[in-house]
């Protein structure tokens, strides 16, 4: 379980947003909303541990994520999948190489067949062995989605995942996210557009939203 | 007093250029540093005051 308690962030003397608190249980989805420039990306980076908070704390399964608890941080990182503005894909590597290397760097074991399978689901089977450089922008995005579908991380933190996706990719991403939540995963994301997630039984996934306001 | 005249003092037994070159540059560096620190401080205070008056 992820608990965010009174996180605040100061940039150039001024607090960026009013302190934010929420908690996220397995199987829950949380949509982080707020005006442009309110600091949604900053908050996500703080939660992941890339930036420091100027107040408050982030807890993972009830324990504080701080330097004093390296074992908690390690457990948190093993359970975390963060997708920021950058895709962290290498143009010189093929789609399949990108997936395999990324999994290894993240400390996961991924078989060639599984990776191929994921690419196939994204309609990239014939593109799997081409360097990403020659793929279209949309195909690159789908490679990133294939990678997301392969992660077994419990907590997904996604920064604007729906931006600039074509209809086909958007549908695929919705399925991937719904599956993740249905399997007891946690999802935290920022988005400018409202997106519905459909479970396999046809019910809508309940999406809570947290509104960030200026301090 | 060990120096008999000012000219002897400035001459430093023939080493005047070296000795006073060292002392002079040292004094100049310190003076510049102090002046810089002071002007930075005052400039900053003035700026803060301006901002303050802007708020009123």
């Amino acid at each position, binding site marked *: 379980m992820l608990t965010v308690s009174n996180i605040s962030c100061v940039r150039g003397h001024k607090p960026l947003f009013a302190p934010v608190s929420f908690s996220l249980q397995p199987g829950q989805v949380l949509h982080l909303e707020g005006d442009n420039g309110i600091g949604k990306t900053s908050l996500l980076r703080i939660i992941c541990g*890339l930036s420091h908070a100027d107040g408050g704390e982030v807890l993972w399964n009830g324990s504080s994520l701080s330097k004093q608890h390296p074992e908690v941080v390690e457990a948190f*990182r093993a359970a975390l999948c*963060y997708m920021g503005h*950058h895709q962290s894909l*290498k143009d*010189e*590597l093929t789609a399949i190489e990108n997936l395999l290397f990324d999994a*290894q*760097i*993240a400390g996961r074991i991924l078989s060639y067949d599984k990776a191929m399978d994921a690419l196939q689901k994204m309609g990239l089977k014939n593109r799997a062995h081409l360097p990403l450089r020659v793929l279209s922008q949309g195909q690159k995005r789908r490679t990133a989605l294939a990678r997301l579908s392969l992660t077994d991380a419990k907590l997904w933190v996604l920064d604007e995942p729906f931006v600039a996706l074509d209809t086909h990719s958007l549908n695929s991403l919705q399925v991937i996210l719904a599956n993740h939540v249905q399997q007891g995963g946690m999802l935290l994301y920022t988005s400018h557009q409202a997106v519905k997630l459909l479970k396999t039984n046809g019910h809508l996934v309940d999406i809570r939203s947290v509104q960030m306001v200026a301090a | 007093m060990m120096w008999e005249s000012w000219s002897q003092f400035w001459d430093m037994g023939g080493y005047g250029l070296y000795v006073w070159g060292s002392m002079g540059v040292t004094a100049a560096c310190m003076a510049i540093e102090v002046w810089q620190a002071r002007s930075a401080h005052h400039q900053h205070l003035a700026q803060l005051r301006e901002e303050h008056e802007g708020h009123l």
Partner: protein
Amino acid sequence: MMWQAYWAVVRRDVLLAWRRKSEGLSAVFFFVVVAALFPLGIGPELTVLRNIAPGVLWVGALLSSMLALQRLFEADFGDGTLEQMALSPIAMPLLVGAKMLAHWLVSGLPLVLLAPVLGLQFDLSGDALVTLTFALLLGTPILSLVGGVGAALTLGVRGGGVLLSLLVLPLFVPVLVFGAGAVEAQVSGLGVQAHLSILMAMLLPALFFGPLASAFALRIALE
């Protein structure tokens, strides 16, 4: 698991360098050109060349690895891979160490292998060439390890390239002294044992602290 990730990073970076050949080659080519320019500037007197060879080749290696250093983290910083490394459950110094090893394999090792050939241009004796190669073999990894800290600190900073040289070159002095010193000692008939041992003694702590400090610097840069 840990070492699997380590070797994955090494293989990935070597593969990337292989596919971006021109980048890696330019630093090596720089080394060759610099070494060739010195005799042209100084004159073809063989005794003079023999005397300056250790220094020239070492300074050339230093500058060329400086050039390569700028690219050590740049691409990964730009495309978000560094963030993923920082968030990986694998200890970041390990991954950074892997990047450094890969960097050395593609930018340091070619210098080591080329040095004897360039040494021939300076009329170095066979023994001196062997010593030069050994000294570079021990010394160039230190350059990558220490320089990595500077490369990490100057990531995304304006004027990064020049700044990196200013930060890192003074720190390279000991490596230069003992690296070039080893070859000179060989040429003048003194033992090279001491020089090489000291290079070794510098390499070992650098192997440990270099990745640690660089990982720390990278976290600062990512904030």
